[in-house]
């Protein structure tokens, strides 16, 4: 706490101060200063200054949160990070001295105390939480995150920013609250804003039906996929794309206002308020593919071959095909195993068991 903060407290007392258990007011009998630990009344200004000096945490905490031009969404997020609504000031200050950790998607945010109650923020990938900062590429400009979020650890482009594939090996340090929120917003755009709207009960969710009905151009076709025959297809979309293993947003959109999907929306900290552009683009392709009628095919497969096909689909769907070791021929999705199956079961035109795709021919 410093003199400027005490001056500010004295100046604010006339209008009343009420922040995290600190209450200060000017009454006809003098100043009143109250914390959960007790109250002092009938104080003149020097006495108010004295009692303020005895409670530096409460005063500097009030001072930090009174910053006037901080947008409400930023205040709400920063306070949530340090658990300001749940923990008392002394409890929090003790924790802040060690550093309070909070998680946001794959981000680990650390809040620490700077001078006079000022907070300092740092953010890195949760997987790097225990690595010494010297091992990480250190940044201070939030906009640097634009490049970091473009590629995953394997160097592949990330078209969906909330996919759980954020690259590791970096840290943003020495951020003030504004810069922290900016950095988070670059990594996971609009998530803080939508989280805040949700907390205020004002999140505007656009469900599947209305979102697809809004589409035009090449995406206009998607609305024909909804035939009033149920919403199972949308369950499949949500299971394919929106599962926590694929996207860290918590899906809040449903089939329509009256019809919830049967698939769980996930446990993410921040909500998804409408099908994203990736889902819309994929839905266009599925609309085309799902317009086909099923046909009956006859294949000969050994039981192990049937299971191998299932293994391959699982490995691709779970993104694990690349991790199966070269010589691990015990895995159905192993490359040699797949090549063997192809050599045995495909004809010269790449058809399974020589069966023509179009059964009408």
């Amino acid at each position, binding site marked *: 706490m410093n003199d400027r903060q005490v001056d500010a407290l004295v100046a604010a007392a006339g209008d009343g101060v009420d922040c995290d258990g600190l209450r200060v007011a000017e009454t006809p009998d003098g100043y009143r200063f109250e914390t959960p630990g007790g109250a002092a009344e009938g104080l003149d200004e020097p006495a108010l200054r004295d009692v303020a000096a005895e409670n530096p945490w409460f005063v500097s905490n009030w001072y930090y949160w009174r910053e006037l031009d901080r947008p409400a969404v930023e205040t709400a997020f920063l306070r949530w990070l340090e658990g300001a609504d749940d923990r008392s000031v002394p409890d929090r200050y003790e924790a802040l001295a060690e550093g309070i950790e909070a998680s946001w998607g794959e981000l680990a945010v650390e809040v620490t105390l700077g001078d006079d109650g000022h907070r300092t923020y740092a953010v890195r990938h949760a997987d790097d939480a225990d690595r010494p900062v010297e091992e990480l590429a250190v940044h201070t400009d939030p906009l640097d995150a634009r490049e970091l979020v*473009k590629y995953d650890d394997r160097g592949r*482009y990330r*078209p969906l920013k909330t996919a759980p594939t954020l690259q590791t090996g970096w840290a943003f340090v020495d951020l003030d609250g504004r810069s922290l929120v900016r950095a988070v917003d670059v990594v996971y755009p*609009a998530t803080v*804003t939508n989280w805040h*709207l949700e907390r205020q009960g004002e999140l505007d969710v656009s469900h599947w039906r209305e979102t697809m009905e*809004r589409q*035009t*151009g090449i995406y206009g076709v998607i609305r024909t996929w909804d035939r009033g025959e149920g919403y199972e297809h949308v369950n499949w979309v949500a299971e394919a794309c929106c599962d926590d293993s694929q996207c860290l947003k918590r899906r809040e959109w449903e089939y329509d206002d009256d019809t919830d999907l049967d698939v769980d929306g996930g446990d993410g900290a921040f909500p998804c308020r*409408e099908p994203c552009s990736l889902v819309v683009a994929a839905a266009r392709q599925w609309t085309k593919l799902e317009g086909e009628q099923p046909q009956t095919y006859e294949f000969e497969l050994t039981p192990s071959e049937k299971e191998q096909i299932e293994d391959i689909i699982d490995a691709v769907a779970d993104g694990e095909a690349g991790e199966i070791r070269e010589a691990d021929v015990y895995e159905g999705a192993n490359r040699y195993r797949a090549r063997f199956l192809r050599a045995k079961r495909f004809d010269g035109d790449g058809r399974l068991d020589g069966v023509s795709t179009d059964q009408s021919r």
Partner: protein
Amino acid sequence: MQSLVIVAHGSHLNPDASTPTYEHADTIRDAGVFDEVRTAFWKEEPSFREALRTVQAEEVYVVPLFISEGYFTEQVIPRELRLEEWDDDAWESDGTSATHATLEATDVGKTVHYCGPVGTHDAMSDVIVRRAETVTDDPGVGEGVGLAVVGHGTERNENSAKAIEYHADRIAERDRFDEVKALFMDEDPEVDDVTDFFDSDDIVVVPLFVADGYHTQEDIPEDMGLTDDYRTGWETPAAVDGHDVWYAGAVGTEPLMADVVLERAAEAGADVGDAVEAVRRRTRVAGTDTEAGTGAGD
């Protein structure tokens, strides 16, 4: 308080699609005349749908980093930004003359000055010329040189061809290049036959695209015969049918594009101070004092 939001297409597949948008946003941010400079994308995040809620200002200038008026600028963007009062006449445009319209974004209650696309702004002619200077590394390029401005044809969007022709005509009127031609990807005169349309030995080819991608880095170089296989790259200039072809890549990557974005916002009422001059100075081809084109006062 005033904010600028640059809206662009972006891509699910191409990591570089957003790069020019970010770079122009940075240039304008550094000029310091907007309280916030943000970007939003059709295919990336933040989406058009969610960008406005992340800006603080009640007054937002939205500039589309698109080449022509059409489907995106007239249907998709106004719809996704929830500019409910928008209709096709809001810009009162003949296809290349849109300036701006002031509307309310109904989900956030903010005032949106929705600007015409950068591609049809007069200053875009200067960017095309600047692009020619950059690729030839010659701030005085023009004499003895032919300039081809390349775009999609009318097939996808009638206004797209109009924008190409508009700038080709404007640049031709300046008498700086010996010849100036508008060429197209999917109709005559076709870019495939680029050397047929020029007498000049040197031909500078500037595609009017926002970002480099499939068309500018694969299609056009192969179609013009700069290379048989885009993956092996090409020379600049490349010898084609006895001409030297200087292929510039997407005009949208030229730093001077930031100037067009600023001018759009300024014409819609944004207070940009002397940022237009500052950006023009900063993005100039190194080592030159001449200005791009004739329309640019310093």
